[in-house]
């Protein structure tokens, strides 16, 4: 089973994001981290490859920088990584990203592609679906449970009412929700091994993808601020203030 996991390096989300004042693109520092939600996909991929025999290839697009985020995922146990880094891809929309990833994945070969449902820094939320469309395979989305084998994949797909059990033949794309599995922590050996693993690099032109921008952000303005109200220190009686406000708002 050839498993491909799409991952993304993002600026540390615990810090403040900065945007280029001209283009309004997110400024990406050299040191980026693995998007936390991608750890679930990597873990899922490792478990499936382990169960059926096979390899896990990471595919990513973006400035590689120090590669810290990719090494994090390799240290978990992925076999190799494919990195598409090209300055011309700055500010790309989800479709260009999907075209790049699809071209890289076609070169790698795949039975199963796993991705998160959305990234933490861009959250367009349509990448896995676009990727599946370009690869002409089914997209089994928002998986809270995944089983793959015997040429097919079955998932629990999150719905607004609960979940559906959905099945398709491989090859397929699966998008996983955070919490689908418990991601492992890299071991010391894993971290050491990650430094020696194969990393294949491409540019957009290597893959034959058009990098012209389709959408642009024309303005960013501060939102009208919501006025903060009273802030009180709990002196043991603060709950009474809450009761008072709830009465005022006719909740009780």
């Amino acid at each position, binding site marked *: 089973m050839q498993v491909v996991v799409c991952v993304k390096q993002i600026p540390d989300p615990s810090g403040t994001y900065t945007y280029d004042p001209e283009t309004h693109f997110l400024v990406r520092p050299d040191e980026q981290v693995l998007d936390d939600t991608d750890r679930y996909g990597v873990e899922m991929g490792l478990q499936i490859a382990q169960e059926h025999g096979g390899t896990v290839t990471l595919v990513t697009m973006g400035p590689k920088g120090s590669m810290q985020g990719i090494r994090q995922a390799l240290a978990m146990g992925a076999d190799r990584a494919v990195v598409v880094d090209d300055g011309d891809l700055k500010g790309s929309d*989800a479709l260009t990203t999907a075209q790049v990833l699809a071209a890289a994945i076609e070169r790698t070969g795949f039975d199963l592609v796993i991705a998160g449902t959305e990234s933490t820094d861009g959250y367009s939320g349509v990448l896995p679906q676009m990727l599946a469309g370009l690869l002409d395979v089914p997209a089994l989305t928002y998986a809270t449970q995944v089983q793959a084998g015997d040429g097919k994949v079955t998932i629990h797909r999150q719905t607004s009412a609960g979940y559906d059990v959905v099945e398709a033949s491989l090859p397929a794309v699966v998008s996983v929700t955070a919490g689908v599995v418990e991601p492992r922590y890299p071991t010391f050996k894993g971290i050491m091994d990650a430094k020696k693993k194969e990393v294949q690099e491409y540019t957009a032109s290597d893959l034959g993808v058009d990098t012209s921008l389709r959408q642009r952000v024309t303005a960013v303005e501060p939102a009208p601020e919501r006025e903060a109200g009273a802030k009180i220190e709990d002196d043991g009686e603060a709950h009474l203030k809450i009761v008072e406000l709830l009465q005022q708002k006719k909740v009780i």
Partner: protein
Amino acid sequence: MAAVWVFIEEEAGAPATVGLELLTKARSLGDVTAVYVGAGSEQAFATLGEHGATRVLHADPGDALPSAPVAAALATACESDAPDLVLFGQAYTDRDVAGRLAARLGRSVLSNAVDVDLRDGAVVTTHEMSGGTQIATAEVAGDKPHIVLVRPKSFPVEPVGGSAPQVEKLELPDVGRSAARILEHHVEEREGPQLEDAAVIVAGGRGLGSAEAYELVERLAKLLNAATGATRAIVDAGWVPYAKQVGQTGKTVKPDVYIAAGISGAMQHLVGMKDSKTIIAINKDPDAPIFSVADLGVVGDVHSVLPKLIEALESR
């Protein structure tokens, strides 16, 4: 007049609420066609008409996962009818169909819009950034149709009293190896008011300290006839199910009163609840960002404030 198509999924036999919100907006932009995905019924079509759809394209995928066949059929219909704009909600099946349709047509998707307009053939959308502290305007020019995903609760639902729309069948093609099948539907038991339409919400975050402490949130909610919510942090930690998540990757809510217990107010969370009419926050950290949107902020420990609040309400 611009032609605007609105994708609407059937939920429990009726049009999904976000679809009716989009119809309400769409009729100010042009002539409205509803793309309705589900079993369909006279009543459902009438509801679409009442909210401004003059035409319905009805697709019934049966037990097929809708994304691939509906996107393929829509791509064909878009090529022949050339609508200016196709609107989707930022919702599960909507995202699946929009992504696949865009890949097929080679179009950009504008995601997470909170407003949308058509100007001189281009689509202009408004987005909240950095937890809603900044408003970005984005634009896509070029070939039609433009594809936009709109966050739920961006527009009110207002019936316009329109007559029964003209209903046409949208035939779904065989999508070969892209097909997927739904084997079973599971409906989770739901108790009490639901997040999407509750007047009062009590939500918990990491400040609760443990999964067990979420019980305080549930007890308070019961006393106030409120729905319970949660931050992404405690959903990811497995304390509560994903269906409770409020925020960027969860639900957008606008209740009359939102009580945030042990929630620091990460951007991710704020964007989903900051438009609540009244916000009450309890948090130990006086510098927590949640206090910047709270009408009443209590700097204190949820483990002492919540039990006292519950007791005070119980003794009333």
